[in-house]
């Protein structure tokens, strides 16, 4: 795949390294001459010292044949503009933006950015999990499917505690794949293990069934 990365800060730099080692073609665009010189030392001629929000710059970088544009700068305004120019001026099929201000996430989605990466939200989802045993952790969206892999902890008061996995009334289209005991032991769902409080479950579910899955595992409506 051909990936254009905008911004050679920490995220852009290491992302580029990973993409190259996975044999993708990458162009890395960085406005700051010093930052870009450091990147060029590592990656060579794929580094372009210029403004990745400028249509002419993206055009010269070959945005027309680009599969994914990922904008990783620390400025939300820059990342939004790079993605919008890529999407609307060059018809780039997939655009991703790092979002610093979590308030901007719904706006970016509404304006056509395909994937938003909010560091605050990522950290928060893990903190919430630690604190409450609470909501789902979205482990991974699944490629080519609308479902995603989610994980959640079974609270101690749940009606499914003490029940075998096969007795849980799962929503349609949801697949419970494994149970992870709190000591770390992995129990495949096919062996029909009994659930204990604080076990984590791993399931594949479409987003619209998450509330039902939540209900099935806690006996409560999802907040």
């Amino acid at each position, binding site marked *: 795949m051909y990936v254009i990365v905008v911004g050679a800060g920490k995220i852009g730099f290491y992302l580029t390294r990973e993409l190259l080692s996975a044999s993708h073609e990458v162009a890395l665009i960085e406005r700051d001459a010093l930052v870009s010189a450091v990147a060029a030392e590592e990656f060579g001629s794929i580094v372009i010292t210029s403004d990745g929000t400028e249509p002419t710059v993206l055009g010269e970088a070959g945005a027309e044949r680009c599969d994914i544009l990922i904008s990783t700068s620390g400025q939300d305004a820059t990342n939004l503009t790079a993605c919008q*120019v890529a999407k609307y001026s060059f018809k780039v099929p997939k655009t991703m933006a790092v979002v610093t201000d979590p308030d901007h996430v719904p706006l970016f989605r509404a304006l056509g950015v395909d994937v938003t990466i909010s560091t605050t939200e990522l950290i928060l989802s893990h903190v919430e999990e630690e604190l409450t045993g609470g909501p789902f952790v979205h482990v991974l969206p699944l490629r080519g499917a609308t479902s995603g892999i989610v994980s959640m902890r079974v609270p101690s008061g749940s009606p499914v505690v003490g029940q075998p996995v096969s007795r849980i009334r799962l929503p349609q289209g949801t697949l419970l794949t494994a149970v992870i005991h709190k000591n770390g032991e992995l129990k495949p769902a096919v062996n029909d293990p009994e659930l204990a409080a604080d076990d984590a479950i791993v399931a594949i579910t479409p987003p619209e069934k998450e509330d039902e899955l939540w209900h099935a595992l806690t006996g409560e409506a999802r907040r």
Partner: protein
Amino acid sequence: MTRHVMIVGCGRLGATAANALLDRGDRVTILDTDAENFRRLRPRTRLSMYVGDGTSHEVLRRTGIESVGAFIAATGRDTTNALAAQSARTTFGIQHVVCRINDPIRSEMYEQLGLTTLNPNQFLVTLVLQAMEE
């Protein structure tokens, strides 16, 4: 009819627009990240000035965006203006939004996306060409 207009960016364009609107009798709320820039404005009763980032929804909300009738993104940076203007329109549902975009290709794109853009350079070029005709 008195309007309440929010302006992001108190550079020459933002300040001039603010003064013109105030002269017409409108109410103006103006934001800039640098308090120094407010020196361009005379203190007026219908003018509120705030130091803050006009792309932050929190700042926009606190400075009263929900009660304005029009919004002008007038900073010197296209990317900032595009984010502020699209926040005003999409997140806060403001009907009249004007956005300064210096880059002609991007301003065309934003026009296609339904934003009203203002390109000072394009405008000046038109005037220069007109002056040369005369």
